[in-house]
């Protein structure tokens, strides 16, 4: 998995044939465009001629044309293919704009940014497969990328919601590392039922968040008590400019979501989205969330080192290592 290089930058449906789209990929400004054959490309959003953004340009048969002086750049190589008004005997200078490999999968446009080979790598979007009617969206939120990932562990209820469901602040254990992701469950209840989420004997619902150690693809799942998924939300996050974060998401309700309380069922029948991704984040609420499980991700806490495993005492293998913070 090299999602640290491959980033989701947009939803496929955001980029129609013959159109362009300005995007930010892990802090880099990109001009995305799709040719008439449906192939998507990503160029640095900066004309090497006079530094004008390319994204407001026109898509031509031979690439993307700058809106300022009409220089045109090939989508795959970034090479300049045309400069208007050059005489026929004049050569096009070897100008080029940075071009990035693009791949599309499961409704997401991916861009390979940074160093490293992308061939053979699993695309982040491979972790998502729609299993029902999809609900999608994009946003730029006023929270830094790292904080966004941290908050998805410490207080995901600030970042997304499930209408008819109250997500609690009681998380189950500590985040567990699973294939490059920190996975954490927290209790949830049907809203408006019972004495309140703090006092239920066993939570009827769980919110499971998978937060990457590298890259920005987050999965949030609403599960029933048997840990079977009711709703899946895949959120692709990436650093935007000025401490903001770009989001693009897809999600759906599973067949099991047809059950539940009456209000929940009616929402499903009415075709209402089973989840919402918060676009206007409540900064006051965010500031009140204590850093807890995110310490595992950010390494802000003291480093942990294994000191002794139970196997040393128990004489068997496969045990967890005891951990202790070392000041």
């Amino acid at each position: 998995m090299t999602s640290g290089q491959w980033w989701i930058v947009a939803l496929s449906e955001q980029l129609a044939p013959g159109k362009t789209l300005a995007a930010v990929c892990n802090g880099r400004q990109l001009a995305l465009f799709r040719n008439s054959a449906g192939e998507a490309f990503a160029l640095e959003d900066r004309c090497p001629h006079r530094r004008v953004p390319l994204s407001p340009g026109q898509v031509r048969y031979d690439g993307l044309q700058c809106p300022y002086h009409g220089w045109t750049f090939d989508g795959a190589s970034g090479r300049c293919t045309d400069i208007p008004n050059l005489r026929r005997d004049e050569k096009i200078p070897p100008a080029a704009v940075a071009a990035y490999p693009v791949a599309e999968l499961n409704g997401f446009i991916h861009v390979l940014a940074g160093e490293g080979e992308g061939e053979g790598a699993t695309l982040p979007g491979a972790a998502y497969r729609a299993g029902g009617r999809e609900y999608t969206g994009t946003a730029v939120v006023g929270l830094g990328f790292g904080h966004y990932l941290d908050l998805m562990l410490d207080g995901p209820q600030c970042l997304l919601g499930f209408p008819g469901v109250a997500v609690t602040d009681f998380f189950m254990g500590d985040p567990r590392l699973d294939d490059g992701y920190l996975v954490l469950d927290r209790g949830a209840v049907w809203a408006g039922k019972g004495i309140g989420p703090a006092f239920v004997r066993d939570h009827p619902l769980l919110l499971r968040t998978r937060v990457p150690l590298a890259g920005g693809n987050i999965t949030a799942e609403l599960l029933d008590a048997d840990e079977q998924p009711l709703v899946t939300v895949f959120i692709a996050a990436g650093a935007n400019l000025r401490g903001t974060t770009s989001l693009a998401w897809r999600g759906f309700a599973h067949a099991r979501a047809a059950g539940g309380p009456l209000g929940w069922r009616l929402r499903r029948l009415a075709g209402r989205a089973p989840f919402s991704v918060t676009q206007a984040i409540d900064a006051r609420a965010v500031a009140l969330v204590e850093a807890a499980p995110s310490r595992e991700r950010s390494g802000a806490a003291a480093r942990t080192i294994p000191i002794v495993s139970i196997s040393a005492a128990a004489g068997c293998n496969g045990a967890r290592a005891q951990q202790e913070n070392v000041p």
Partner: protein
Amino acid sequence: MNIDDKAARFAAPDPKHDWIPGNLDLRDTWFPMAYSADVKAHPVRRIVHAQDVYLWREGGRVRAAEFRPGAAGAMRSRPTAFTGGSGHYPAHERYGYVWVWYGNPDHAHEELIPRIPFLPADGTRIPRYTQRSVRFDAASPLSVENLIDLTHADFLHANTIGDGQSESDVVEFSSTSETLTRTRIVTRKSVAPVMRWIGGVRAQYQDLRAVLHVHLRNNLCISYPSFEPGYAIPNVQPFVPVGRHRSRVDQTNYTVHAPAPFRWLMPRISYVIQPQDNSVLRPQNARYFEANQRRDLSSRFDAPGNRYRVLMARLAQRQREGDFSYGADADPAADISQLLGMKA
């Protein structure tokens, strides 16, 4: 040892560093993971030290496993040494709880289940109204230290438990390598509002003898507060460490000998107390993970709590060195009726 013992005043586990309660992960102990009545054929999931424990019944017998029964493939986690590679934890039922062994399963002996002298061992005749589950936003040892702490209640819970006004308030404590016992003897304290208004104690003042017996490894807190005039409200608070930041407590407030309606309402006081505690515990727990933390200050009232820190640190150190045994001075199953001050 009396709380006025100066030697214990600033006792701390380490002269250089403070404790980090969320990092204590003590092994080879029984945890009361669930009320027996809550475990039926359909599995329930509980967590101890961030490790899954699934509980269910087969033919009336309780089972405890690392994985959800019926789970296959990737859903079935690899069994660890905590179950000897079998996936199944040792489990027993006693005092209305399902006890699950956390540690080396070869060391799981039934006689290491702590004695709770005021509860029927077979769990029968324990009414459901005495059992209430609460969750705390802190590591278990921090919650236990707060329970040992006597002075916070006067501020945080004054409206329910009562203020700290009394004629005399003496605190004593003793310990073994596995337990800490704190006794508070208060004379002529103002009657707790909850006891006055629904407990039938109309007097203005009452005496209190409250004994708290803490088992260190599993954070099991056995309390026997006895009021005069009034009655005893024995209770068990097992702080099961869910992880480094959260704990779960399946309380038993054994109020069967108190008058009605107090006996039914008193266990529900946790619905008031728990949010009050969590308002403090959540930020408090987070601050123990700060880098470059400053050491806690203490007053003489913190002597039992500081002793608790020392004992926990010693136990952790022993386990770090591979010694998981129980010391000669420790017998979890010892009869503590006398220690608690239970009347024959």
